[in-house]
């Protein structure tokens, strides 16, 4: 972009005169074109998932909106708008060299902390969590979603630095004790702030993301094992001493205690499972699921959006979504595999851990094998902040991909 392609320069140029547009076209379609080097499989799958998500959100909401006298397509339009904004944000995250991003990582991190503090001061409570900042024109911001991106970038920066052994002077890429402690410190601050909302689901996403990044970064094994052990003990203590708000505990335990209850937290899951099972192999057809159209599943456009797919698109559709998510994760890991440095690989690892955990917990919840945690399903659930954060994450993956030394397909 620093090349002067002005008309004056053209006249003195020895190469055949070509139009500015033509040059751009060459640049775009050339062998080393950044557009060519983008992971189009990944991008297509992400857009496909978001598109399916738009249909499912539409199916889940149009009846209710219509009955309330609102435009039945409101959520459909907003989901698509979120997708477009998300793609733009993702493009920005792709274009800026991730090494620049690494340099600005501390600011990204601090910015996310400001957001988390702001939500505690300005935020509104929706569904028992104080997680949203309500903006004008009906928009809402959920800073904890952006905290996921910030933490992935921050942790990748620290864990991906070239490390020099103080005693031997040998450079190696495995982080030492000091790095691990720093990462843990960086993690605990947003976790603490999110706990205050409280949003237990997001906390778990952060914990698993950082754990995954630590494990892949080559941090000392006892740290990784020790942290896992701590997590188990902490989790047990929480349930044992009732440290969680009772509704959160009810959500967590409802799936353990075979929710026969037709009301409360068990009700949601029960209705979601009925909806999914009702779909059979081929589904009831979009907009024709009795459970969905009868609005039996609460929160169906957000946390339980997968139940719409299960009922209306059947096993073929729902398993197709799982396959698409699998392709996204597979491509992300390939990008990490092909990254020229640890930073890029860890970014990819972090995003994969984040998406995997969130997808598995969300779908698992709809299928009755995971507790109810209130996590959105990436790309499919309705929600602007979630969509933006996911798209920025995908943008970061493309960013790493663009600047890979080797061709990841060569592995």
């Amino acid at each position: 972009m620093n090349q002067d392609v002005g008309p004056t320069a053209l006249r003195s140029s020895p190469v055949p005169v070509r139009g500015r547009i033509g040059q751009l076209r060459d640049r775009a379609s050339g062998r080393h074109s950044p557009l060519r080097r983008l992971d189009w499989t990944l991008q297509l799958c992400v857009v496909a998932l978001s598109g399916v998500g738009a249909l499912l959100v539409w199916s889940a909401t149009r009846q209710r909106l219509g009955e309330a006298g609102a435009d039945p397509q409101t959520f459909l339009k907003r989901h698509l708008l979120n997708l477009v904004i998300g793609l733009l944000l993702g493009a920005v995250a792709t274009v800026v060299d991730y090494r620049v991003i690494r340099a600005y990582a501390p600011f990204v991190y601090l910015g996310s902390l400001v957001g988390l503090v702001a939500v505690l001061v300005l935020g509104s409570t929706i569904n028992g969590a104080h997680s949203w900042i309500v903006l004008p024109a009906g928009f809402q911001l959920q800073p904890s979603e952006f905290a996921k991106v910030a933490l992935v970038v921050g942790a990748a920066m620290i864990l991906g630095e070239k490390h020099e052994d103080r005693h031997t002077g040998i450079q190696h890429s495995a982080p030492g004790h000091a790095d691990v402690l720093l990462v843990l410190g960086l993690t605990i601050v947003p976790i603490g702030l999110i706990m205050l909302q409280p949003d237990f689901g997001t906390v778990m996403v952060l914990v698993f993301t950082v754990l995954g990044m630590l494990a892949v970064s080559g941090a000392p094994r006892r740290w990784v094992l020790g942290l896992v052990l701590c997590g188990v003990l902490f989790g047990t203590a929480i349930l044992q001493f009732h440290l969680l708000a009772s509704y959160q505990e009810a959500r967590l335990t409802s799936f353990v205690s075979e929710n026969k209850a037709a009301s409360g937290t068990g009700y949601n899951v029960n209705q979601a499972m009925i909806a999914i099972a009702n779909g059979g192999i081929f589904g009831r057809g979009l907009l024709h699921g009795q459970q969905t159209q009868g609005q039996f599943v609460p929160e169906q456009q957000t946390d339980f959006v997968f139940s719409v797919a299960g009922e209306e698109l059947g096993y073929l559709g729902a398993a197709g979504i799982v396959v698409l998510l699998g392709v996204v994760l597979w491509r992300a890991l390939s990008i990490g595999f092909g990254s020229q440095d640890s930073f890029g690989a860890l970014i990819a690892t972090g995003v994969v851990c984040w998406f995997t955990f969130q997808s598995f917990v969300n779908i698992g919840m709809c299928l009755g094998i995971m507790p109810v945690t209130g996590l959105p399903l990436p790309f499919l659930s309705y929600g602007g902040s979630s969509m933006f954060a996911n798209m920025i994450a995908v943008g970061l993956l493309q960013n790493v991909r663009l600047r890979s030394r080797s061709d990841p397909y060569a592995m």
Partner: protein
Amino acid sequence: MNDRMRVRVLLLRVVVLSLLVTLGARLWVLQILDGDHYRQVAETNRVREVVTPATRGMILDDHGQPLVRNRTSLVISVNRSATDRQPDRGKAVLTRLAGVINTPADDLVKRIRFCTAQVKPPCWNGSPYQPVPVAKDVSPAQALAVIEHPDRFPGVSADLQAVREYPQGSLAAHELGYLAPVTQDQLDKQGDEKGYHLNSLIGVAGLESTYDDQLRGTDGVQRLEVDRFGRVAGTASTTEPASGDHLVLNLDLGVQQAAEQALQDTINSLGGGSRTGSAVVLNARTGGVVAMASLPSYNPSVFVGGVSEQDYRALSDPANGIPLLSRVYQGSGAAGSTFKPISTAVAMQNLGARGDQRFLCSQTLQIGDQIFHNFDGESAGPITLHQALVISCDVIFDQFAYDSWLGDGGLRNGRGPYAPPKEYFVRMAEAMGFGRGTGIDLPGETKGSVVDRADAKAIWEELKDSYCRRAKNGYPEETDPAKAERFRKYAAEACVDGYLYNAGAATQFAIGQGQYLSVSPLQLANAYVAIANGGTLYRPTLAKAAISPEGKVVQTFQPHRTGTLPVSPEILGYIRDSLRGVTTEPGGTGTGVFADWPSATIPIAGKTGTAEVEGRGDTSWFASFAPANDPQYVVVVSIPDSGTGAEYAAPVAKRIYQAIYGVGQPAAQPGGRPPGALPRINRDGTIAAATTSDPLRPLGPGGTSSAVTSIPAASATPPNSAGALLPALVTTPTKAPVTTPAVTGAPTSPPSRAPP
């Protein structure tokens, strides 16, 4: 990025892949393996049933007179799925409604809440989608107040519902029975098979219970699709209710009325109180039940809409004579001398006595150290068995029983050379149907009891400990010391040799006294049916036919033979002839009662009985049949705690015969026989009566050869003006939820008169 990191990324791949495979597998289980289960759950999740009860069939007597029919009642109902959606959850509407139907609003709230383990009645145990009836039999004005202001009463409806009605009051209450709401247990066990629904009414007593399947019909079910909030989204399917079949009985209204009236008069003359009485009339040729009366009785309408606890207690109170219990088939006692024809059969069939043989009817009979007195202590000299029956001589039958007992080894209790004991009297009693149910088409029949030597021993084995304890401790709770000592002595004897079937018990058995034979009036009548018709035992049957709402005969209940008496026809003929003498010959125990009876045209054969009951007055019995030469009807009357058979039971039987044959009154059974044809039920619910199909013997009115007369009262014309109101309601162009259930048996046109 170094190679070790690459390895870890590869490991992460494996983790991610396995998690996704887990989801895929779980999805497979849920959607494909367990799919059916969840689809069913989904179905119940979103489909709600609204039940339109079928109209129950009528129960008619043999001529088509309704004994049970349906009347329409204007019912106001509250639809909770509508009122719950109102901003105040229907409070304002209920308060307004309370004003209209003059009920406290609190009461209304209680009635429409849902019953649970904690919430007890008043509450609603039906489906939340079923409108809850809150007021029955409201006036048309009240119904209109609701219907014409749907804006003020959203979710409230008024419609016509069919309610069981008993036009004859308490008549034949024990036979008709009553309905009660289905229990959860019945619903769980038979709900699907029998088509019960929540708040279905099912027959739980009498014919309503036995023929519930025929009478109930099939409820209409509208299956509504609803969303999570219970809002109706559409109708999945609708099945219209199909009315139940009508049941035509062998029972005759006129005979039944006469029987109940005669019994009532007799009981009143005795002083009423907890006194009871029963009468049964059977068709001697088929076992059909022509009348069956038990007093005290009750009006089954107390069970309509649910019996109150107070009423139910009164109906089961011994101080009132337990009106719920039918003495005809649910109570039993000693038969007294009405058993003697059976003993006569034993004497002639098993013990070799001949009809022309004479036996000494002495004043007393000494057996061991016991002396048996002839009834009233009279001696009649040497007489035939015929005369023994006519004057009811005990001693002759005692002697036969004693001989038979000796033949079985006496106190050796049928052991050794006497095994197995022949026990002719016991076996004959069993052959007559005693000791087992007759199989009548009513629930809860008593078996009575016939005790033979083996039974006596078994009973003693069971009771001997208590006898021996009583022998030691006496009866300190008994206030009369003499009585207590008598009881103690008896217990002391029973403790030692109670297993012995002694001569006293055997002789008592032969004359229908003592503890070892207990029969219900129905059993006795059934035995007399066999004696009267030449030896065939039938199952007594109330139902004659089931007729569909369209008037088609769907089922006829044919006479059902249950056995043949082991007695030769000649001997039965001898016995019948002897019994005829009871009412006609000089010295006959019934001659006085039937002195003014037209015995030449309608000869009556019968046997009086006076059964001694410990601690109470005698039970008066009369068992009979007519005409004696060609029996058509068997009439048995039993009046406990009264006196001799001739004094009380025989006059009641006579009044029943008068009603049957129309002596001094119109005949209830024209021609002296039950109607051969079935009544014809028209589509509109009117009934064309059945009369006798035998035009050769026109006795009394109605016996014309055209076998049809119209019974205008037979249809269920609503007693209030709802019938007139209904068409007006239907044409009212409001959105009021007026429904007009198809009440079969409730004509909208006046009953048609049959052609002459």
